């Protein structure tokens, strides 16, 4: 499923990142890569999704999240 559908307070793992070269480079450079585990901190309507990964709290626009496929870990 897409990251924007993930439940808050859950743990997910990135399975696939798709999008144009620019999006790929942006998302990689902030530390989100396939295989990395993300903790979903908040996922509220009309707000960016808030995840925690590689020691960093990251805010991701909901639309951009559609390019990030995740599987639920817990």
């Amino acid at each position, binding site marked *: 499923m897409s990251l924007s559908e993930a439940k808050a307070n859950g743990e997910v793992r990135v399975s696939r*990142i798709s999008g144009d*070269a*620019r*999006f*790929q*480079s*942006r*998302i*990689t*450079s*902030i*530390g989100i*890569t*396939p*295989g*990395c585990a993300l*903790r979903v*901190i*908040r996922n*509220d*309507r*009309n*707000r*960016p999704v*808030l995840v*925690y*990964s*590689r*020691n*960093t*709290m*990251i*805010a*991701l*626009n*909901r*639309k*951009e999240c559609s390019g990030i496929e995740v599987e639920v870990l817990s």
Partner: protein
Amino acid sequence: MTATIALLGQPNSGKSTVFNALTGLRQHVGNWPGKTVEKKEGTFLHDGKEYAVADLPGSYSLTANSDEEEITREFISSGKADVVCILADSSQLERSLFMMADYAGINVPSFLVLNMADVAEDQGKKIDAKALEDKLGIPVIQLSATENKKYDMFFEAMNRAIENKSLINISGLKTELEKIEGFTKLEELIPDGSIENYSALWLSAKAIENDRLVIDKLKNTLAPDVIKEVDGIRGAGGGAVSTGNSKFAWIDELLAGVLQKKDDQVKLGKLDRMYLSPVWGKPAVILTILFGLIGSFIPALPFMGLGQAIGGLKAPIAEALFSAGVSEILITVICNVVLQSFSYILQMLGFVFGVVLVFGLLEEVGVMARISYVFDNSMAKLGLQGKSVMPFLISFGCTMGGAAGTRVIDNWGQKVLTIALAWAVPCGAAWSVIPMLASLFFGPGAVLVIIAILLTMVLHMWITAKIFGRKLVKTGERYGMIMELPPYHKPKWGALFRYVLGRTKDTFFRVSKVVLLVCFLFWALSYSFVPGTDPILFKIGKVIEPVTKVFGMGWQLFMAFIASSVGKEGALGVISALFNDGSFYSAFSDAMSGAGVAADLNEVLLSNVTKPEALAFIFAITFNMPCVVALAATYQETASAKWTAKIAAYYTVGALVLSTIVYHIGLLIW
């Protein structure tokens, strides 16, 4: 110049703090030629030798996706920097070393600064900088927020990097990247130096990442059959995602034995539970900004007092000069142009000082990132980032403060667009004039007028965003927020003050030019050089009255409209003088000082101005250029005379168009 140092780091790596701490007052802000990106340069002295510093535009990587990254790449590859200082955030080392990993393979000497060591320490992290230095082969130091003395270590690392021409040891990265199918072959096809200063490893990685600049350049240097082969491997390489994986794998390997940390736990602090709450987030942000605005006035007050004192000197100085036999024209230039300008400028500087200090502080401690998060959704509709909400709110108080507040917006195009939209927000001076005029003419209907003005403001901002946004924030570059929320930091007071003083000084010189020029121009147009004849502005006003009638303004109102672009409060003074057959010049100069409203203004207005004209006039001055100081502040922040002029012309024309529309609607009603 002994050497040039370039600062390279992701946003929030503390890059600007280091830049400000190094350069202090010796910095210059401008624009990169032909690009809509801010250019920050400065110099500093160490051991009696002068060094130049370039603060490279903030970006998350070196891939040529935007102007910022292209400028950074061009600066580094052209050999303008003798050494590159790469910054990373100690508290988020796993992620923030990415810039270093993306730089590895560029053959320009570098050293690594692990910033915000104190934050990492608070989180219970221990970093062995020496061990990392041994692995990387370049000087590595830790820098802490609170200790400025540590810059000794900074200089030592810098000099070592320059002397040894230290390059990053890329063997570990090479092992990781060569796990990508065809990478080794790619390195053979694109040998070292195919493009100057870049290694085969770096170019191959960028080729896989579809980096436009590298691919274009390679097409010019490599044989067509080689390019074909390169393209084949590239296509199957997996893009930035796969090279990113390799880079992070390398970082993890580097940090093994270097970074010790407790269990990785995330818990939102009290402050974040409030700011990030879906319910309380927006009110909390708005309150924060309002308190910030009030806080800005405290350091501003002494400046404002001084500015007003200078304004008060006009009369006694004029008298003294008169009795000394100085010619009248010189006296008016000295008093009504020079003294008046500096009175404006000082009052403005106080406010700029306050706003930059308070909102610079909010940026530094990490609050601004939360503001960005909360308003990302709403501001993205205008092509802006969440932070833009702050200048908009400040502009309800003062447009100049709003313009100064855009300093925390890191994208130049979005910064200029934010200022362009902030002009549409009626400022404090407008709010002191509008309700008065509206209730005079429309009684209780004034409420409707104010509602109409607020609605027009929203519409104006929306249209302006469409018109200006197309150029300033290109649709292809409109990406949703992908941003880190940094942990809260303690502010570095020393660096912050040096920065604020530096910016205030810079503002003073640039703004003085604009304000003096505009005030002189208005003086020249409104002064009767030959006694008994009418000033130029007066003559023009009368001649073009048939035209201004279309806007719903007789010549008197039109003159007041013109005066309102210098200062809103001035508009009423001009009206009362002109309808009373007062001297045009003294009306203008009094109005510019914010005084000169006659006691009988109400009767004068009611007997000379019709309702549609009044309504048109209210809209015209509300949405006109805010004032000369806002104009100067816009020039200061955008560092672009072209865009400042564009915005000013747009608002002048826009106000007249609005006035025309409102006037003709008014004619239908009354």
